[in-house]
């Protein structure tokens, strides 16, 4: 492990624990069942990281089960001068749930996994109130009998929580046509960083005031903790077609993506996988993915039957015009499910190539996909790394995965350098830092590539309205010197 050097001295105190957590833990234990407050060394170790490569250090971890308990936890933490770090399932990839404190005190991690109930379903209005710990896929399963589903579908949907989806404004393959989480959240009941409770948004279409709901979604835990979430449920489409298209080159696959959109189609999903990941996935799921393809597209079309059939034909025509080697339309639901299993288990299949991966999440204009992809391969080669690409091509959302074995000496430095080069390449063509994973700690110090100081200052003003003391998930999203010197890099206490 290597601490990121720059800025470390300024914030060195963040790592000095002092271990003065007994009184804090006792108060938290009095506020909720004692077995839901954890401060043993092993337990704290488990919560040092999320699914990113970064690590921090919690002071206490607690698992409230009610709104009152969340309010109590926040209030107690603040009274003890501790920051609060909200956490859902810990599947985040940008270090958003990595515990980093303020003023040398390790933070209180508030985990929402015990708040896992669907509270109310209004099938007529197509709305459900859920607690933040409800798992994404469980929500869709619980409303399936009504012909409804929750549209955002991250690859981690079996394990990620709706609260985490709200925090990160999560996406997924089917967000191309139906929009990311923000478009599917109507209202939020939120414990603010001062412990008070506020309703943001409402069940009606035009609640009065600023769109605080919209401001909160995607705020990565820096503006409070959502304790009740009203989500919009979407009707299942009457017809669905899933098409696998096989290409001899990345370029023809990418020009097919552009051609499909330019033909006036908005597929429900439009995913690309390159040669290496396609064959790793095939080894894993045996779905008949072509092992010799340079790239495949997985295209899903849904809606009313005639439109779906016409769109399927257009996809086949555009693919043929771009020189596709083959077009396979899933014959039934089982085949369709198998193709999607291949796509959604891509990250698991990586383990067949190497034990570790570092996943990026940039967005570029669709029409620049070919040039950016070729640059991504060049950057990986330059840093002597393997890269695979499996991503949401329809909205230009790249997911280059650098695949490596962290036991190899010096490899982490090359992985981080390659990642930085890839981000720069995406930004150079008008792209952005993240499409769906968030900024967290990981990309915080790249924000200046996209935004001016004035732009970042405006974002900071919004954050400060919610959290004037910057005690809720501090040091995330915005590169900020506040309270910790002028940090130029990931704060000390967060380890890579």
């Amino acid at each position, binding site marked *: 492990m290597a601490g990121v050097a720059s800025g470390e001295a300024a914030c060195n105190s963040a790592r000095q624990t002092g271990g003065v957590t007994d009184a804090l833990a006792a108060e938290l234990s009095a506020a909720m069942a004692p077995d839901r407050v954890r401060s043993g060394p092993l337990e704290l170790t488990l919560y040092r990281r999320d699914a990113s490569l970064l690590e921090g250090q919690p002071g206490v971890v607690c698992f409230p089960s009610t709104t009152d308990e969340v309010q109590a936890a926040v209030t107690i933490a603040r009274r003890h001068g501790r920051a609060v770090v909200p956490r859902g399932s810990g599947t985040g990839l940008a270090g958003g749930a990595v515990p980093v404190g303020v003023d040398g005190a390790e933070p209180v991690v508030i985990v929402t996994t015990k708040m896992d109930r669907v509270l109310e379903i209004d099938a007529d209005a197509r709305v459900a109130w859920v607690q933040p710990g409800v798992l994404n896929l469980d929500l869709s399963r619980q409303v399936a009998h009504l012909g409804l589903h929750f549209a955002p579908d991250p690859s981690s949907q079996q394990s990620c929580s709706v609260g985490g989806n709200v925090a990160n404004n999560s996406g997924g393959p089917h967000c191309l046509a139906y929009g990311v989480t923000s478009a599917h959240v109507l209202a939020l009941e939120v414990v603010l960083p001062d412990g008070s409770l506020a309703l943001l948004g409402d069940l009606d*279409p035009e609640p009065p005031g600023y769109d605080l709901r919209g401001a909160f979604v995607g705020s990565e835990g820096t503006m409070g903790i959502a304790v009740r979430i009203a989500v919009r449920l979407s009707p299942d489409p009457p017809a669905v077609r899933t098409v696998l298209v096989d290409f001899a080159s990345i370029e023809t696959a990418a020009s097919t993506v552009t051609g499909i959109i330019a033909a006036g189609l908005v597929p429900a999903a439009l995913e690309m996988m390159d040669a290496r990941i396609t064959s790793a996935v095939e080894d894993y799921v045996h779905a008949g993915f072509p092992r010799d393809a340079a790239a495949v597209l997985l295209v899903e079309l849904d809606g009313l039957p005639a439109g779906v059939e016409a769109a399927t034909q257009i996809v086949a025509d555009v693919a043929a015009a771009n020189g596709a080697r083959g077009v396979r339309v899933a014959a039934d639901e089982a085949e369709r499910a198998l193709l999607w299993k291949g796509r959604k288990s891509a990250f698991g299949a990586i383990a067949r190539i190497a034990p570790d991966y570092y996943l990026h999440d940039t*967005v570029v204009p669709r029409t620049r996909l070919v040039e950016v992809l070729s640059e991504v391969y060049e950057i990986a080669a330059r840093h002597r790394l393997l890269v695979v690409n499996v991503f949401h091509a329809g909205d230009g959302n790249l997911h280059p995965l650098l695949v490596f074995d962290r036991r190899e000496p010096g490899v982490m430095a090359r992985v981080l350098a390659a990642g930085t080069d890839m981000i720069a390449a995406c930004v150079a063509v008008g792209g952005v830092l993240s499409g769906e994973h968030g900024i967290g700690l990981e990309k915080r110090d790249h924000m200046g590539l996209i935004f001016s100081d004035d732009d970042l200052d405006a*974002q900071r003003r919004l954050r400060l309205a919610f959290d004037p003391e910057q005690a809720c998930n501090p040091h995330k999203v915005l590169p900020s010197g506040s309270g910790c010197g002028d940090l130029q890099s990931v704060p000390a206490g967060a380890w890579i």
Partner: protein
Amino acid sequence: MTGRPQTAARTDRPLEDFAAEIGTSDPVVVVGGRTQWGVGGEPDPTAREVHAPRGVVAHEPAEMIVRVRAGTTVAELDAVLAEGGQTIALDPAHPERATVGGVLAVGQSGPRRLGWGPVRDTLLEARFVSAEGRLIRAGGPVVKNVTGFDLCRLLVGSLGTIGLLAEIVLRVRPRPPVAVWLRGAADDPDRLRQALFRPSSILWDGIDCWVLLEGHPADVEAEIKAIGPGFDPVAEPPPLPSGGRWSMSPSAVRNVVATLEPGTFVAEVGVGIVHESTAPPSRRVQPATAALHQRIKANFDPTGRLNPGRMVT
């Protein structure tokens, strides 16, 4: 089709000129098409009037985005988009006068919201002028983006009290091959909503229903059959009563309009907007939420110089 912009820039003046016009002190009020001037209350009459720049900067059909200056009318923008077979999910009552910036700043959707979604979901990037007279960028010119806090959502519906929109990037959508309004008598509009898949609009005045179907011709035909007899194509939806715009949960609409005289209101079924002649009562905002509003306004516009008199709550 390539990704190069289909339109050359047709704009009237640089954004910096707009920022300079707004300046750094004294109250300013931004004027669009004055089509929704009363929303949020009359602005301070002594405030200096400013107008946002106009023109479509670039339409990129293969990216499904358009960059446009805030003072452009919705009709002018839509005419440019139509050349590329696309349209925009902004649906104001007077598109020939309403400006894109005005529609976003007010944030109210039109009668197609059921199918097209709320106004807020169309905004991808905003360049706005702050109370300090600085040009600020929020969001980005791509269809999916979680880079930083979502100031775009905050700006939509903020009535120009946080910053003044100068240029925006909007998500566009394909123009539907077929669009048909149908009208027929209906005493249960919810039945129509259940029978149809994602209709673009269902309006109801207590006597008749108007349904907008858009999409592939064969699907529209099939949906017309699903509606059943008694519905005939009409040129346009009913005029919307003015004076009152009520917002309620879609499942509350039936009970609320039961107290109204049929034919005097138009309800947006499945959305929860009811248009009628009397204004809704003002709604109480929770203390914690109200305090958040005050802090946001104070942080973005400490001297209260942006659109003074306009109130969002």
